[in-house]
């Protein structure tokens, strides 16, 4: 799995690709927590390259969501593949997270999403 962070309009975008599992989720967690702690206006996770996510990866995203609430940071996901979306739906988390179809939509709407939306 690879994790790269870039900034667009002060919003941190975490590009994540590969398998997010017990082995790799700590790297995603590290990037996620660093950006949320930086207290920018928003953090987005680009999931378009994520081929697989297990419960440890989902736990990392939940932890990110919870920290973003504390720091009042806008937090969202975009580009979910069908398998990742299905797993989130099964766990009934698709309505907990703010999920956008793509990066353009995410950047356009993230500012209008309240940090507590989706919960």
């Amino acid at each position, binding site marked *: 799995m690879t994790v790269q962070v870039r900034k667009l309009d002060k919003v941190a975008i975490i590009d994540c690709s590969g*398998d997010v*599992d*017990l*082995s790799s989720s700590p790297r995603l967690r590290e990037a996620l927590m660093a950006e949320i702690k930086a207290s920018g206006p928003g953090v987005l996770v680009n999931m378009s390259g994520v081929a*697989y996510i*297990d*419960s*440890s990866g*989902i*736990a*990392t995203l*939940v*932890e990110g969501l*919870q920290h973003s609430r504390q720091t009042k940071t806008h937090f969202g996901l975009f580009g979910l593949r*069908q*398998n990742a979306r*299905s*797993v989130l739906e*099964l*766990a*009934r988390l698709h309505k*907990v997270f703010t999920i956008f179809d793509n990066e353009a939509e995410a950047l356009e709407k993230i500012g209008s999403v309240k940090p507590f939306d989706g*919960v």
Partner: protein
Amino acid sequence: MTRIVLGSEPRLLNVLRAVVKFRAQEAGFSQSDSEYIALAVDEAAANIIRHTYHGCHDEHMALEIHLQPDRLEFILEDWGPKVCEDKIRPRPLDDLRPGGLGTFFIYSFMDECSYEQDYKKGNRLKLVKFLSGKGACANDGSSAKAR
């Protein structure tokens, strides 16, 4: 029958997933169902690493895959302390917190889930997915019958 022995290193879980997915597809499951089955077995193996071996990477586990006429069986074997089966429960989905979803996924995607009581050297977890109704991966976490 396929049997592989792996070290308890999280980075080896992708090997386990690849083998499970390959065998499931070979047995006739769709690609998406094979991925869900691989996720369930992966979660069970991850539980061994985290809870039985407490993250120690120097231990081992084995996976056996048996294709029966009506089902695919996965047997995960470890040589750690006995698991207290009564303590294994999927967490309520309304409880939003990190963690606790692995067991939920196992129960969701498998038809049966049970520990072999007579196994003395550690734990043998048997996961069963029936071939009938292939594509019927469950969606509510209540699929697997604990036996």
